[in-house]
């Protein structure tokens, strides 16, 4: 992922404002996509790159805060920076609680917006990395046979091979074989690493 891949989405109903934002964001080497309304943004097909949303609070139709709620509900975890002509405290509190990165009142300092954008993109990058890692683990977990998954659940739960064999009605040797397969397929170098993977996958592990 390079800087040029990152894209900033701008939603503002005021065309000159949109244009000035595009100009400003482009001047620091970021890609910009402009939208005049929330609906337009929701309908668009967006590139799968690190991104953030610069959102005017007051929009015709769906407001900026409504859009923020919609994206969260839809699992579109995109960091939001609010800009507004005149914001009040309750409005900004609502926005920040809903996960906004920044809440800027027009006219804001150009650097404040650019800093917020960098912060938002960084947050999105991390989130995307995490999502990618989990996706990889899921793929690996999916490659396990049903028997291997049963064994893995019990291994990360801290059971001994003998116990697992007794529970599953197989010999300790067979369990050892499955366990090896699990470590191999999941790409785990050690038991603690496997436990961490299981945690990320949402498999119950005992708290030490």
């Amino acid at each position, binding site marked *: 992922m390079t800087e040029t891949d990152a894209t900033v989405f701008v939603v503002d109903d005021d065309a000159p*404002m949109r244009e000035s934002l595009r*100009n400003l964001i482009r*001047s620091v080497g970021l890609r910009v996509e402009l939208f005049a309304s929330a609906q337009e943004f929701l309908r668009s097909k967006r590139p799968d790159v690190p991104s953030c949303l610069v959102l005017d609070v007051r929009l015709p139709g769906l407001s900026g805060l409504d859009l923020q709620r919609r994206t969260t509900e839809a699992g579109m975890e995109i960091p939001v920076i609010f800009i507004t*002509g005149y914001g009040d405290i309750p409005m900004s509190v609502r926005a920040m609680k809903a996960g906004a990165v920044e809440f800027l009142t027009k*006219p804001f300092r*150009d650097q404040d917006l650019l800093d917020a954008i960098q912060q938002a993109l960084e947050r999105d990058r991390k989130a995307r990395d995490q999502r990618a890692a989990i996706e990889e683990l899921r793929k690996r977990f999916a490659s396990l046979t049903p028997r291997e998954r049963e064994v893995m659940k019990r291994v990360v739960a801290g059971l001994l091979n003998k116990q697992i064999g007794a529970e599953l009605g197989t010999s300790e040797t067979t369990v050892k074989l499955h366990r090896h397969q699990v470590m191999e397929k999941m790409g785990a170098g050690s038991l603690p690493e496997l436990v961490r993977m299981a945690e990320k996958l949402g498999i119950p592990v005992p708290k030490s």
Partner: protein
Amino acid sequence: MAEFAESKNDFPIEASIPDCTVSLESILCTEQLRRRPWRPPDYKKENHALVALLSARLDPQSNILQTLAETILDVTQCDSSGLSLLTKDDGGKRFYWPAIAGTWKPHIGGGTPRDFGPCGDVLDRNCTLLFKHFERRYPYLLPVMPPAEECLLVPFYVGGKAVGTIWAIMHGDRRKFDAEDERVMSTLGQFASLAYQSLESIEDLKLQIAAREKAEAAVRQLASGLEAKIRRLVDANIIGICVWNLEGEIIEANEAFLQMVGYSREDLLTGRVRWRDLTPAEWRDRDERAVAELKATGTAQPFQKEYFRKDRSRVPVLLGAAMFEGSGNEGVAFVLDLSEQKRAEEALRASEERWSKLAENSSAGIALIAPDGRFIAANLALQKMLGYTEDELQGRTASDITHAEDRAATEAHIAEANEGQRRVRRVEKRYLRKDGGVMWADVSTVFVPASGSNSAFFSAVIVDRTERKQAEEELHQKEVSLREAQTALAHISRVTTMGELTASIAHEINQPLAAVVNNAGACLRWLAAQNLEEARQSASLVIADGHRAGEIIGRIRALAKKAPPQKDWLDLNETIGEVIAMAGSEVRRNRISLQTQLANDLPLILGDRIQLQQVILNLLINAIEAMSGMREGPQELWVSSQKVTEIPGESTEERYEDRALADAEWTHVLIAVRDSGPGLDPKGLDRLFNAFYTTKPKGLGMGLAISRSIIEAHGGRLWATANASKGAVFQFTLPIRDERMS
């Protein structure tokens, strides 16, 4: 024996007080009577004399006392004789001489004070005395001539009480009194006593007869007067009078009686009116008691009973009766018709009952209260209102159950009424109920002073006003809220317009400003990156944004014009009515007379209801405030509406005709607000509608500017002129058709 005075009645007592230089003993010679030779008794002569005296006593025509005097003269052969009697009218202070014979006879009727002559000595010593020249001791008798040589005096008594003396006198020495004279005089003294008693009896009898005659005359006079009076009473028919007998008959009756019982005189004359038949069975016993009383005492005390009338209806009467003296059978009865009285009593009882029921069932509380404030009686309504029973109230005073804040006033009212001031009073006050709650009440009290056997009291009518009071409070609260709302509305209309204006300005200006900042920031970055083309483009964007900001400022100037109103079809008269309702309390508070003259055929106007209300309210409040400083002259406010026709090209004042050229040519509705305030300063007229221009100490100077903006946004005009007579006129037009509104 004797005593004399020159005049009969006129003797000066003080001038003749005896000096007593001559002792009584020196003039007495009684003991000589025994020593003197005495003549034999002449019984024949004596008997003769006594017979004469007795005959005189039996003959009322003769003067027995004079006969006695003459008998003494005859029997004793003396020169003068007579009687001295003590006066009775002054308790015996004097002697008088009712009978004298012989030489001193001319002195009949004379007399002396009791102690100024020898008679007093005789009575004091209570025995016969013989005096010699008594004038030596009693100079009072000196003038009585001839003087008495010797005087024999004998006292006489009646019932043991001294009455007087008889006496015999010798004026010379022709003979001297002896023991025989003494004896005869004693006998005659006893006779004198008898004679005196006879005389007394006769006198008493005469007096008795005279008294009786006088009494009889009086009785006769009284009787004749009484008879006349009774006759008048009978004839006057004021009360019924009848003569009856014990057999049950009515012998005579006056008209009043006959009318009372409904019979005619013919009925009476034919004996058909019988008092026993007139009496209902249950009254017969009472009649018998009265008859018994009549027989015993002659009269029957008045009593109440009933009679049957001829038509068998009943009449209540009061009856008193008396027997005729000596008849034993007949009597008279006085009968008073009690129908009216009974009716009045019945009416009074019914009235009392009605009042009592009314008081008991009244929804108002009614109480009787003693002068000290203690409850005497309370009706059910009051008991319910206060939660106390009548018994509990009787143990309390009005003050006890009065709210603490009203207690002093209540006590003062009671005291004032007791002192005779303000007997009637109506107050609004608070009571404390038994449950501790407060009851507002209208209380009307009347103090009734003591009269006769009735003691003084208050009557009080108490009406529960708690609900009304609460309603009043609520109403008051509502009025206060409304007034606050109005004030707030007027303020808000100013402030929000300002606030919205600034918010809009901020928003509109912030957009290009933010764009300027963005583009300028980008420009700097492009320059730093040596990308001149992008930098140039950024600079042009900054310029464009700057222009845009300028355009926005221009647009904001006409913001009110351009702000799209919330348009509805409005009945302007209705809108005016709503505003007048809102301003009503302000109008009343300032004692302003508000009149409307609204055209009843106004077309509906497309406009923003709230904004137009604000304009009218603003004009009304301005007018009210303009007049509030006035001390003189009528404060009048007129609001009018009418249809007008616009004549383009004329000045504002002459631009609108209130006369249509043709029916369809009405172009505008004109609303005018006129006041009788101090009017407008012609110099300020031009600036009147400028923003921030004000003549009021607290004004923002935005009202008229905003109002004009609103009216112009509706395609109309707002302007001000001086009122024809006094004050100012603010008026605005609104187009009937929406052609002017974009």
